[in-house]
């Protein structure tokens, strides 16, 4: 061990330290070679690195000569890796977050570049703009999965068979339809509340909750501000209680499946696809796996009515791509987003996965659910879901409490009071104003 002693040893230690510090130093300079080629770092979840997204990247590289270096990680690890990189100022130029609207609550806002003054923003449709705009008016991303809405998917063949020719516009009419379906031997509405699959039922809750936008139209911003600052409690919102009571009524009248506590996502797919149930609460993301097994299925989409109104749909924004506020290659990253937002790229992007698009000038093919949803968006009857509006909304807790409410061990009011308690824990933990 004598080599590390004396003057020679001291020099060796210094060389080792220099090598170590070089190995640990920021790698950003590596991204500019002699020819000044720009290399964009792009972090994405493996699940969302679709072929159509790869095609956009390929087109961008061909058009600009820049390179996009993709770093994909499974969603289970993605958030932790992104956080570590962002916190050590070693974040990628471009990154994705789960739902664009919910990203405003799940991540530090300082990560995101505000894109609201970009030229392409003027081309957004009113509905599309609503979907991807944060509470504070910022636009921070573009969807890389199709945005959509929650409501009830219904089997058109079953509706026709039992003679339902017009969609219900009031809750009473909706109950009549359920009665008709039940008498014909069908389960009117499939409720999916097995552990791990509860989201299938909170979709219906979110859709019914969205009606608060219609009942409080011009006071809606103040309403959400009240929820976010603890001035309004969920338990005091009569529309929310009414929405939950409607859900319980469906169960009590026997219009839902008895085995909802053991009904999983896969069971739902089989039941709906094989024509055992007439309606199921969901978004259009359930379609591709269902149509793969039941290609002849004909489905439509309607929001469950609310009291004496046709009801509103709840929107979600989809997984979004954003520009790191501290990006090394910010100009190129913004250029990539503009390229992706172009009409030609968006139309090519939508061509392989039909659905809702956020741009007004993009000719995108719809799927069976999104074409009906578009009608509600155009009529101004579709609104961002509560989880995208209320920062401390406890979505995971709501899913579990939904089980108890549908089992009858909690009333709708108790459900909302519990959500108030859980929201308070999240809000206090995040040190939100007013809590």
């Amino acid at each position: 061990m004598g080599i590390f002693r004396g003057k020679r040893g001291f020099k060796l230690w210094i060389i080792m330290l220099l090598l170590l510090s070089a190995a640990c130093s920021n790698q950003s300079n590596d991204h500019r070679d002699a020819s000044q080629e720009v290399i964009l770092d792009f972090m994405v979840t493996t699940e969302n690195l679709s072929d159509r997204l790869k095609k956009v990247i390929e087109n961008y590289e061909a058009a600009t000569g820049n390179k996009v270096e993709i770093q994909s990680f499974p969603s289970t690890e993605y958030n932790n890796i992104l956080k570590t990189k962002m916190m050590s100022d070693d974040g990628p130029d471009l990154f994705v977050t789960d739902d664009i609207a919910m990203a405003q609550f799940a991540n530090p806002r300082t990560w995101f570049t505000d894109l609201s003054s970009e030229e392409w923003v003027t081309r957004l449709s009113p509905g599309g703009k609503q979907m991807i705009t944060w509470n504070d008016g910022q636009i921070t991303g573009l969807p890389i999965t199709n945005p959509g809405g929650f409501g009830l998917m219904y089997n058109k063949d079953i509706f026709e068979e039992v003679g339902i020719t017009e969609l219900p516009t009031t809750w009473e009419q909706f109950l009549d339809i359920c009665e008709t379906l039940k008498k014909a031997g069908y389960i009117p509405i499939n409720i999916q509340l097995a552990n791990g699959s509860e989201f299938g039922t909170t979709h219906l809750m979110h859709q019914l909750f969205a009606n608060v936008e219609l009942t409080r139209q011009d006071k809606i911003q103040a309403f959400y501000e009240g929820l976010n600052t603890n001035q309004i409690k969920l338990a005091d919102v009569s529309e929310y209680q009414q929405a939950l009571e409607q859900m319980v009524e469906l169960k009590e009248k026997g219009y839902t499946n008895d085995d909802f506590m053991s009904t999983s996502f896969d069971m739902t797919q089989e039941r709906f696809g094989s024509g055992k149930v007439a309606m199921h609460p969901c978004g259009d993301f359930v379609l591709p796996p269902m149509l793969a097994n039941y290609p002849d299925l004909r489905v439509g989409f309607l929001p469950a009515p609310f009291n004496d109104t046709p009801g509103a749909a709840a929107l979600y924004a989809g997984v979004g791509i954003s520009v790191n506020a501290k990006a090394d290659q910010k100009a190129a990253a913004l250029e990539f987003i503009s390229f992706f937002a172009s009409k030609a790229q968006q139309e090519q992007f939508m061509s392989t996965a039909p659905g809702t698009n956020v741009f007004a000038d993009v000719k995108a093919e719809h799927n069976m659910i999104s074409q009906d949803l578009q009608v509600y968006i155009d009529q101004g009857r579709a609104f961002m879901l509560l989880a995208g509006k209320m920062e401390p909304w406890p979505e995971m807790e709501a899913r579990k409490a939904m089980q108890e409410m549908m089992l009858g061990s909690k009333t709708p009011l108790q459900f909302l009071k519990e959500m108030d308690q859980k929201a308070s824990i999240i809000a206090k933990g995040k040190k939100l104003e007013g809590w």
Partner: protein
Amino acid sequence: MRMNAKSAIRYPILFIVPALVIYMIFFIYPTLSGFYFSFTDWNASSTEVKFVGVQQFMDVVQNPDFTLALKNTFLFSITTTLGKNIVSIALAVFLTTALLTRNALRAVYFSPAILNIVAVGLIFQGLTNPDIGFVNHMFRALGLDWFAQGWISDPKLSIHVASVMEIWRATGITMAIYIAGIQNISRDYYEAATIDGAPAWSKFRYITLPLLMPAVTINVLLSLIYGFRMFEGIYFLTQGGPGTSSEVIMTMVYKYMGQGLYGYSTALNLILVVIILIFSFPILSYLRKKEVEG
């Protein structure tokens, strides 16, 4: 060759330092930083981390789910510790007799231990599904409809189903340790007892059990600690549901970590560590006193 005093001390230090550095970086530092973060408001939506002192712990114990999760954690830990050890001692005694099929049976009883706990959770989810699960189908086929229960869908039963699953999964490995312990007991004791006319129960009570106490100590302690910090089994079987009926401390830790409340969930975790320490040391001390030399 003689070494001087400096050389004699240098070599042990050179061997210790790398291991110590790794231990400090990967164990001491994360443990201490975890301890520190439990006193902060560290969360996902802010880049600032502020020291909040014991307020975090007060918030945690006031959480309406905390009491139930704590109760379930104790219930799960105690039930699985008793179940795993009683069943595996019985199996170990049975499988150390002169049974022709004992090696095959040992393999059969040990096999659940090699399964991934996530897979076990999903298997039990399928088995105990109240409508399409094997368990209820079997009861109904036997005309025992009364026994067909809601299992994991029933808030009163879900935590017990999770306990049964863990007992089934881990009994094999506990049994293997007991078998090794029994095989180490000298046959002379049993021969002497046989000559004295001692019945089987007396041989077990006065020879096997006392001489098996070192294995009991390790198995009870491991079962208890594993039970307290159980997460995967419950998460993949019930996800803490229905509602919060099978919530345990570790599923709460996971939930709040997922909601971005890192400081809060670290505080919950620290409470669990303290509970484990409070219960493990007296039990270890008690069981060590019961151990006898063979």
